[in-house]
């Protein structure tokens, strides 16, 4: 198949985009009022579509609205139902078990090690295979003269629609500058001016320019450095890849005490006994809520939520997902792929088929996405692609006009490369975009030190819930994984010596099966999902 860029009918619309560009270059569409924002969310945000959610029938969130795809897994059977495992035959004995090898898990491993803990980090795929690696735009921290943690706090709370857990937000904004300094010392190459001043720009919902970036490989740069640092301590941190946890282990005192792993290649089980267990399994975009395409890593199937819920841990804000306003809508090979918010941060506007603006380019993500959905679905102003998908224009060529030739190539090399691979030149042509499933706003409820209601169980990163409330701001997830990853590692590192483990048990799996029966749940689903099935015979 030959790649030809945009079709003639798409080109007609693009002609209008180009013609209107000089007039709108320095004039953004106005921001919506608070009341208008609430209205557009209620009418158009996917979270509010009634068929997308249902009440859970058992567990601590019983009766709570939950996305139907996640609810089916939360109400699933354990893979270990009826399995005969000898829990005395322990394969790994560790001070701290970290489930997940992304940004949060790696940060936790490093800080737990600093406290003298022997760490076992296990991961479903490879170390670093995680949404952290894919984050493009940046990481927030209030380190400029005109900014402050309190101001960052206000932006986070407002962006989350005043629903966030205040203590978690305080932890996030307070630790933010320290985390950037930590990463700088780990050798992360943040974008800087020649005098060392960090280059910061706006993101949706920021009142100060506090988005730090490393070109548009911000997450990759952080993940590569964290991974390399973890690899520098092989005597203290053992990494086991292709071995996801499929169930938590408890002891006979009701404490979390490790996990059962499954080797993805040999299908053998392994028993891990640990005095502290940190869930850092990330999000669940690969469940494709509301049938949306997603930006997430292949392994983002919400496994940590399932395992934690099964022992009785409470989920917070699980009825809200983030749909990133700008996923690729064309060409069809990359539908759903993330187009970083940095493009709008650099001034690119969002336009309909007539080449007209219809929304301020840097509303918070939920509002921006809702406005795009309205423009396409209600107003019929979307641009149709040959495969029948629809989207709106993101006018990337504006970036070079506003900031000088070469800016797109220098600031957005990953985006340029992504689109060029499929025949689109984003330096000279806009991108066609539509909202894409991006982030799990909620997760397992935690305290600021990452502890939960269960002794021995901690959670960090996207798997946790509360810090972002009902909507996360751009640049606060790389911050979340590093801040709370470090906090989880510190807490676990401080607590493991005082933990006296009893006898390992999977009694909670039997109890769960009884609860399913009592609740009248009849299901064939076994969970966690582990991997999505995209094979033709599996679809």
């Amino acid at each position: 198949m030959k790649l030809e860029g945009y079709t003639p009918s798409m080109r007609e619309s693009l002609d209008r985009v180009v013609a209107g560009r000089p007039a709108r270059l320095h004039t953004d569409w106005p921001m919506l009022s608070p009341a208008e924002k609430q209205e557009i969310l209620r009418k158009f945000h996917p979270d509010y579509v009634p068929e997308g959610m249902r009440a859970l029938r058992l567990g601590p969130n019983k009766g709570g609205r939950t996305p139907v795809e996640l609810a089916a897994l939360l109400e699933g059977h354990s893979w270990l139902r009826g399995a005969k495992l000898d829990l005395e035959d322990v394969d790994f004995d560790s001070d701290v078990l970290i489930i997940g090898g992304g940004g949060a898990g790696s940060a936790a491993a490093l800080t737990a090690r600093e406290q003298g803990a022997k760490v076992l980090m296990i991961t479903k795929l490879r170390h670093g295979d995680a949404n952290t690696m894919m984050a493009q735009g940046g990481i927030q921290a209030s380190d400029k003269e005109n900014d402050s943690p309190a101001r960052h706090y206000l932006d986070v709370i407002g962006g989350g629609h005043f629903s966030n857990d205040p203590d978690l937000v305080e932890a996030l904004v307070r630790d933010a500058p320290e985390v950037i300094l930590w990463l700088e010392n780990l050798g992360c190459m943040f974008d800087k001016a020649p005098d060392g001043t960090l280059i910061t720009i706006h993101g949706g919902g920021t009142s100060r320019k506090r988005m730090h970036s490393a070109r548009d490989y911000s997450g990759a740069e952080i993940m590569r450095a964290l991974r390399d640092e973890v690899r520098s301590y092989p005597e203290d941190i053992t990494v086991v890849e292709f071995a996801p946890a499929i169930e938590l282990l408890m002891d006979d005192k009701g404490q979390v005490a490790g996990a059962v792993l499954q080797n993805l290649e040999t299908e053998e089980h392994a028993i891990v006994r640990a005095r502290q267990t940190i869930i850092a399994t990330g999000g669940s975009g690969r469940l494709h809520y509301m049938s949306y395409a997603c930006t997430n890593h292949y392994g983002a199937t919400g496994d940590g939520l399932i395992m934690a819920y099964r022992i009785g841990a409470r989920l917070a804000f699980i009825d809200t997902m983030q749909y990133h306003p700008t996923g690729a809508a064309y060409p069809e090979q990359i539908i759903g792929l993330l187009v970083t918010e940095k493009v709008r941060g650099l001034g690119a506007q969002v336009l309909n088929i007539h080449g007209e603006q219809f929304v301020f380019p840097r509303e918070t993500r939920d509002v921006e996405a809702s406005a795009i959905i309205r423009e396409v679905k209600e107003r019929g102003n979307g641009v149709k692609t040959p495969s029948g998908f629809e989207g709106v224009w993101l006018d990337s060529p504006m970036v070079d006009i506003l900031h000088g030739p070469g800016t797109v190539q220098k600031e957005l090399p990953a985006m340029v490369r992504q689109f060029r691979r499929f025949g689109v030149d984003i330096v000279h042509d806009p991108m066609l975009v539509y909202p894409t499933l991006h982030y799990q706003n909620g997760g397992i409820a935690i305290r600021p030190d990452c502890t939960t209601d269960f002794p021995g169980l901690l959670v960090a990163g996207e798997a946790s819930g509360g810090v972002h409330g009902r909507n996360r701001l751009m640049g606060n997830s790389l911050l979340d994984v590093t801040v709370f990853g470090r906090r989880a590692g510190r807490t676990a590192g401080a607590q493991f010596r005082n933990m006296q483990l009893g006898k390992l048990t999977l009694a909670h799996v039997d109890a769960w099966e009884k609860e399913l029966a009592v609740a009248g749940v009849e299901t064939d689903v076994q969970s966690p999902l582990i991997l999505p099935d995209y094979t033709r015979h599996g679809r």
Partner: protein
Amino acid sequence: MAELEMIPIYIMGKRYQVPNTLTIMGALEYAGYQLIRGVGCRASFCGACATVYRQEGDPKLYIGLACGTLVQPGMYLTQIPFYPAERAQYRLEELPPTFATLVRLYPQLLKCLGCGTCTKSCPQDLKVKDYMAAAMRGDIARVADLSFDCIMCGMCVSRCPAEEAQPNIAILARRLYGRYLAPKAQHLAQRVAEINAGKHDEALAQMKAITDAEMRQRYNTRDIEPE
């Protein structure tokens, strides 16, 4: 309307018919593979899905990411999900950012032939040979800059006749640059010192203490730094 056409491809030598609109990764899954190795972010950031392929009638070997390469008729392909490149052991905080460090940790560096096979094999189109040359000159900043978009797939290692570990040399250089050679952000260290000295405690406590109504008022009327 793009024509949907079924085309033959050869996965590890075995023929499958797949739609011509798919990426190699899509084609593997269409053919029925439930991928465990050779799949990761599916967005060209993680380097898990490097694939070697050849076109019918063309002896040249090409390298691409399975998630970022379209299938073509008669493509012969195999994935290389892992390559055993050497990684030196070090503690970044103990290393001087010098040429001597690079050579001590990766003595093989000096055996680079400058043949450019690495550059030809890079699915990110990086100038691998050029950054290796910079490494041999001890120009760590240049290595860091040229290698910045490396996704560490290991394909340059797989093709290198001198058995270099280019991605690992590159990340060492980037970390040395980021920690020691890049100018320090003074304002950052200053803000961290302020926070640690408790200078922002009161403002944060006040912000946390205000009523929901006042919080909304402040948020909706806050001034936004101009572009």
